[in-house]
């Protein structure tokens, strides 16, 4: 028996089999599901498309815009609005046809945002449709560039819009979103399976392999995809972050590049490929405790949120967030949908004092400790968390907490400290190439010292890119 077993382990095929199984099934234990009230019901509310659109430059980290349209000019839907000054072939296109109403500028005339007033009759730029099976990588690449899809592709290292000249070693797509109150990908993409498949097939020609994660319990959209390697993923957040998938499947080494694309954006790319049309319509979840009703609605990139927020009964004293509560950007009741967002969250602002808030027992907040905090007793309870920081900024003191919610093979605190002291060698050695700020959103959530983890990582990435490029 003993010899048989050892022979089994020595057998190369057996080891190969084990590694295959292990690489395809990923279970995340280290993490935290922050359960919040106000998940969007699986219903799409009817709505007339808004008139006002705004493309916000804060969405495109590292891109220096060069305007291609002036105030007062008209644009068609899918026509370039501006390009990246350093690589003019990367363009951002208008989500609707209409009038370029205003270009907002900040200090030193830096462009902040571009407003478009939509026409009542929409005109659409149409590209030649590709024959997917015959198409070469170059043809696909130039279609993605000219159609305005390129900004949807991001790269690691640095978590910026992908370099045009690079060939990635792999493309990674997360087919589940485990962030709190995030839009359900299976629901918002349910009618666009063909587009998603077309996009995956096209992308598979740009890289040796496309890795896609799908929920272990199965997914109508992702489980049947071809031309890619599927990974069944289960467990707690950040199981659905693409950084987790990369780290488990094929981490980024120095000198390597991988691309990441949000699953929801595959529908846009797919429509460009199959129909030649850039259509950024997406089903957006309106989630969070500060809406009267939580439903989905169809909106285009940059659409004014004003009507939708009113429709869903936004309460006063709300924080409106473009995205989820962990990684989203702060917006307001007259804000606009972000370029990459499929979720809009509204939670109560927490700008109030709490008497002896630091020592009394807590049942209404989430914690990974049991320091008179009792969320561990109610694993299924949904919480109504506010934006209060629950304490002040302090030096790093406690150790071992980040590791409980950080499944990557990286030392989170050591990497954060390397970024803070701007030690490039350490940043590189400890794995900064592999991560994006969002990978540090949970460590930021549990941080007792209330350190701004995502900002620290972002600044570290920017520095590393500037110095090493």
């Amino acid at each position: 028996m003993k010899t048989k077993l050892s022979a089994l382990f020595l057998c190369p095929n057996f080891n190969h089999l084990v590694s295959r199984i292990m690489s395809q099934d990923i279970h995340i234990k280290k993490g935290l599901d922050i359960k919040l009230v106000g998940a969007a019901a699986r219903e799409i509310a009817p709505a007339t498309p808004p008139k006002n659109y705004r493309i916000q430059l804060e969405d495109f980290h590292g891109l220096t815009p060069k305007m291609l349209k002036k105030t007062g000019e008209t644009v068609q839907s899918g026509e370039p609005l501006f390009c990246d000054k350093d690589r003019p072939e990367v363009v951002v296109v208008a989500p609707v046809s209409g009038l370029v109403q205003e270009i907002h500028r900040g200090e030193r005339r830096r462009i902040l945002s571009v407003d478009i007033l939509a026409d009542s009759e929409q005109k659409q730029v149409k590209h030649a449709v590709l024959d997917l099976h015959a198409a070469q990588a170059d043809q696909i690449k130039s279609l993605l560039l000219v159609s305005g899809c390129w900004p949807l592709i991001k790269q690691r290292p640095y978590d910026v819009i992908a370099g045009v000249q690079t060939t990635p070693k792999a493309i990674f797509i997360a087919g589940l979103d485990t962030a709190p109150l995030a839009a359900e990908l299976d629901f918002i993409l349910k009618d666009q399976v063909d587009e998603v498949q077309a996009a995956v097939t096209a992308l598979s020609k740009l890289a040796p392999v496309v890795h896609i994660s799908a929920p272990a319990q199965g997914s109508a959209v992702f489980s049947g995809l071809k031309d890619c390697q599927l990974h069944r993923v289960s467990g707690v957040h950040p199981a659905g972050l693409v950084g987790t998938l990369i780290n488990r499947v094929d981490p980024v080494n120095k000198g390597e590049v991988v691309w990441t694309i949000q699953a929801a954006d595959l529908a846009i790319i797919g429509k460009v490929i199959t129909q030649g049309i850039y259509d950024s319509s997406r089903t957006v979840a309106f989630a969070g405790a500060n809406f009267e009703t939580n439903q989905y609605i169809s909106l285009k990139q940059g659409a004014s949120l004003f009507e939708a927020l009113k429709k869903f009964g936004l309460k006063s004293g709300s924080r409106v967030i473009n995205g989820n509560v962990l990684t989203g950007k702060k917006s307001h009741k007259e804000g606009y949908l972000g370029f990459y967002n499929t979720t809009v969250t509204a939670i109560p602002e927490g700008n109030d004092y709490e008497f002896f808030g630091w020592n009394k027992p807590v049942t209404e907040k989430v914690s990974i400790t049991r320091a008179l905090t009792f969320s561990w007793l109610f694993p299924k309870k949904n919480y109504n968390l506010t934006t209060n920081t629950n304490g002040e900024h302090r030096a790093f003191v406690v150790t071992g907490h980040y590791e409980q919610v950080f499944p990557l093979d990286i030392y989170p605190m050591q990497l954060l400290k390397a970024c803070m002291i701007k030690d490039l060698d350490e940043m590189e050695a400890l794995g900064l190439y592999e991560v994006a700020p969002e990978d540090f959103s949970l460590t930021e959530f549990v941080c007792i010292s209330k350190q701004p983890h995502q900002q620290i990582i972002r600044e570290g990435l920017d520095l590393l890119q500037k110095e090493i490029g």
Partner: protein
Amino acid sequence: MSLKDKLHETKLKFQGTKMAPAFNAIHTFLYTPNETTHSGAHVRGADDLKRTMNTVILSLIPVVLFSFFNAGYQHFSAINGFPAEFNLWEHFLTWDNLVVGLTTILPLLIVSYGVGLGIEFLFAVLKGHEVEEGYLVTGILVPLIVPVDTPLWMLAIAVAFGVVIGKEVFGGTGMNILNPALTIRAFLFFAYPTWMSGDKVWVHQAVERAGTADAISGETILGYLAQGKAGEYTYSISDMFFGFIPGSVGETSTFLILLGGLFLIYSKIASWRIMVSAVIGALVMGLIFNSVVNAGWITETSKFYDLMSFPFWQHLIVGGLAFGIVFMATDPVTGAQTELGKWYYGFFIGFISVLIRVFNPAYPEGVFLAILLMNVFAPTIDHYVVRANVARRKKRATSLPNIQTAH
């Protein structure tokens, strides 16, 4: 106008002034601030540093209460002799005992917090940063690890030294290399050795009674062993475990320290890895000494014989080992910071503590020196743990076939 609004207005008044950190420290003690997130995650966990420190203090409260009574119990027992049949309510939890404890230990607590927090406030105002909560725990630890009759002026000097040299010069809470409470203890030990060791300092007024008819020794068990008087103490195992023995103010009751430790592990505030590995380290070293004795390498004439033949597991219930392991070794700032490193760090604390106990002729207590020593080595341990991760990453980069480089 409510207190909340009044304080809010005062806060705005102080904003930007030099005294703002001092006011904020008191304000945030009463009310968690109205601060909201502005970047990154929009919601945050319930815990802050105050809550964390508060949890450690909660775990120490039984120890503090016990120390009040034990101070009196040891004092009166030194005068009248230990009761023949011990009764907890008749002999221990009495008013007389409590009064002795309150009059001796409360002043230590007040001086410790007064001087320590005073310096913290001063540095916060001078350097313009908020008052960090690190001293909340240090302040309660310090009175618990000194002899009961430590003169207040000595304590004040030691606290000032520990906070300024041990912590503030490194940049304050979170930046220090040595555990501040142990730095204070070490300062006392090396600056005033006659006060901090010997056989008379562990019981209230034992020094004054020396040479009189009342002179009953208040020697600690380790003291007996170090002097080769193993047969002379009358404390039972249960006395040692429950803590009815002389010693530093709060270190005697292994039972309550164990309860505190379990609470810290349950609340996930302190590292169970450090505690478990330190216990293992102490047991291993104790076993080594026991087997050296059993092998006959050491004879009864050796001055180390009594300490080396002391049953290995009893090391855990005498002296400051348990207190050190639970409340000092687990200090996250000065301990190892990686989960793997914590195993090595804890193990060596236990191991070296017992080693020093046996071989240190001057003062048979090793735990505070062992922890300080390992404080110094903790960054080195972490360094090697982290380098293993770095090496893995480098190896991965060079061993992969067909690397597609980005150009």
